[in-house]
Each structure stands twice: as structure tokens, then as C-alpha cells.
């Protein structure tokens, strides 16, 4: 097919998930819709995922970015594990963290390899631009 209209960038594909036992998914769902409404394709894994299941989804779905939601203060344990799992799989996929993360932990998470940390109360624009910045391209506009 040589049609130039089809050569356009395709939508950013985001894998959204929560690690571990925490069941708070309100924020994750709001982010899923926000990203969809910004034209992205959201592969929604939801609750109780493992680093392995997230990595497997990223490979099979050829995802551009991982969005991880945190709530129960497990971020200092879970974020480095996620980043490590992505690295070990040889994937070049940035990890964006959202949810309840105290401001003083943000530099630590960035040091651990998180591409961005989106705090509680972030606006839709902030969420979308953090994801776009992590992928380093805007999603295909329609």
C-alpha cells in the first residue's frame, strides 16, 4: 500500500496496570479514559499484575510505554522491580508512575529509572503530556 495517509504515526500504545494486591483502580480507570480521549490505545491490564505479566503484554502488544498506578505506599519496592524487569527483557519501554506518591520520593523513583511521576491531582493535560514526553512523540491526531 503506498497511500501516504496510511504512513502517519499510529496511536501511542500504553499498557496500564497495577502491581501487587492493592485494589484501588479509580485513578487507573480515569487515566485509561483520559489517554483514550487523547487518541491513544490503552491496553488495560488492571489489577493484580506481576512484572512478568506486564512485560509479556508489552512484548506481545508492542507497547510504547507502561503506566503503573501506585496507592499503598509500595512504590519504593515495586517501581525498581518493574524497571528492572523491563531492562532484563531488553525492552526499550519507559515506565510512567501515577497515583499516591509523596513528593519527596519522586527524585528517588526517577533515580530508580521511572520516566516520569504524575502526582495526585494532576490535570488531564499533565497526564497526556507526561506520557507523550516519555514516548518522545505526540500520539496520532485525528
Amino acid at each position: 500500500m503506498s497511500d501516504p495517509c496510511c504512513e502517519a504515526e499510529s496511536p501511542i500504545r500504553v499498557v496500564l496496570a497495577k502491581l501487587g494486591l492493592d485494589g484501588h483502580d479509580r485513578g487507573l480507570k480515569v487515566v485509561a479514559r483520559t489517554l483514550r480521549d487523547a487518541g491513544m490505545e490503552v491496553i488495560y491490564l488492571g489489577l493484580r499484575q506481576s512484572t512478568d505479566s506486564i512485560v509479556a503484554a508489552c512484548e506481545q502488544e508492542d507497547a510504547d510505554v507502561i503506566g503503573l498506578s501506585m496507592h499503598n505506599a509500595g512504590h519504593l519496592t515495586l517501581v525498581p522491580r518493574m524497571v528492572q524487569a523491563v531492562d532484563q527483557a531488553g525492552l526499550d519501554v519507559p515506565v510512567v508512575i501515577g497515583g499516591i506518591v509523596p513528593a519527596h520520593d519522586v527524585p528517588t523513583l526517577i533515580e530508580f529509572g521511572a520516566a516520569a511521576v504524575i502526582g495526585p491531582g494532576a490535570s488531564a493535560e499533565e497526564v497526556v503530556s507526561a506520557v507523550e514526553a516519555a514516548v518522545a512523540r505526540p500520539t496520532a491526531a485525528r
Partner: protein
Amino acid sequence: MSPNHIGELFEAALGGNRRALGKLLTMVEKQGSSAAMVSERAHRDAGQARVVGVTGAPGTGKSTITGQLAGASGASRPAILAIDPSSPLTGGAILGDRIRMDNHVGCGAFIRSMATRGHAGGLAVAVPDAVRVLDAAGCDPIIVETVGVGQVEVSIAAAADTTVVVVTPGWGDAVQANKAGLLEVADVFVVNKADRPDARGARRDLELMLDLGHRSRWRAPIVLTTATKAEGIDDLWAEIERHTAYLHDSGELIRRRGRRRRDEVADRIELELRDRVHQIVQGEPGEAALGRVDRNEISPAAAAELLLAALKPHNPPEG
């Protein structure tokens, strides 16, 4: 993307590298210039895998069944294509089927979620290409799951060797299934949520409809499942295998696949033509012709006749 690189990706995918397979699927999904090369390369090795379509109304438990089927097949490399609609307004999509498919013990499938990306016609091309890539990468069976609400979604699931239609107890579903043309495409019926009291009633309704409309040598069997408990899935897989055997023995497989390829070629031409029509109408000759229509100099029919000439190569239309 160079042909060499694509060849390497295929080598890796055939060896079980999920990342490589994921990348190849992205190329055909974009339907850009590398898609043609990937499709070409895949077509050489394709044709081995059984292709099963699964469709049904929302909330029938299709995704759970699809995941369990992959496990029940006992195959070493099953694959699933889960297709969901994109938002017509924003082009974005939420693809949430993996959760139901992946969490079941023994699934182990390669799962790829695909969004319709706004142009339903494109899907008619992208899905056969994706199936071809999975096939060439050694996946088998390949299960294509769609929501059976629109004609396009149904026809995608119907473009399989065996099409499974999932309904749940209750009249509403049966009527909806009928409306969407689901009943005609079914090779195997599933009444899911068979633990509900009215499941037998649903089966009776389906039997009745089959009695009324039954024509071919194959009468679609009806399997009762309770996907939440993984009950009836082995029976379902057995019926799919029985249908596979029927397809082989009757020669129907060759006819079906031939028809599928013919449809795909027609779809590709149609898509290409549609794009070109779009370009012509939006382009300079179109503007000129439409201007004449606006000034009441020619009729819309005459303008169309004039512009049609542009579709013929080396024969530019006169404005």
C-alpha cells in the same frame, strides 16, 4: 524497514521471540509501506494454522472462553487476536480483553489486542495480514475474537475456518444475535453461563432456529459452557476439531479459504479505490468539477462521470 530486517524478525518470531512477532504485527497493523513486505513474506509460509473466529454480543463471556480455548487446544503456540472498536471521535481505544484471557491457567497464548482505528475497511485488510503473520510465525490455532455488534466485526470473525458464536441465556440475546446476522455465520454455537436456570431454554430456541434455517451438510452443534468455572470448554474444543475434520473431508476447507482470499483481494481493491476516490474528490479536479456542480453547470452525475476517468491510469480527467 529493510527486507533484511523483516527477514530477521520473521526468523526470530518463528523461534518464539514474542518481541519480534509483536513488531511484525505493528507493521501490518499500520498498513504502511513495510506492511506490504511483511505480508508478502508471511504469505509464503502461511496456510498451516487453524483459524477460529469467536464472536457474540458484549458481556457474553467471549474473552474468557477465547482464553480458555487457547488452553484447551493443547497446542504449544496458540495465538489470539482480540479486536475492539476505536473511539470514532478521538481514534483512541481501551483494549481490555487480555485480563480475561491471560489469567486462566494453561492459556499460554500470544495475545495481541487490535483497535479498529476508525476505518473499518482497513480492518478487513489488517486482520488477514495479522493472521498471516501469526501463521507464518508458527502459531496454531489462531483465534480471532470480535464483538458481534456491527456487520464488519461479524464478518471478520466469520472469515475463519471455524466460527464460534457465543450467546447467553435469555431471549434478548437470541434476538440480538439474529439481528446482527450472527446466526448465519455460526459453525458452532456456545450457550455460555449455562449455570443459569434458563440455559436449556436458550438451547431450545437455537435448535428451533436451526431447524428453520438449516441448509448445509453441517448442522452447527450447540455447546453449553460455564466459562467462569471453565466448564464445557473441552467439549467446545472437541466440536471445533470435529468441524475441522468436516472441513477437510468435505473439501469445504479449500472452498472457504479460496473464498476468503478472494474477499480479501476484493477488500484491498475496494480500500485502495476508496482512498483514491477520496483524493480525487478532495483534489484539484474534484474541486473544479464540484464548482461546476455548485454553479448548476453540470449535474452531480455528470461530475462523477467526469472524475471517474481519473481512476484510469494515464488518463487524467479534464477539468
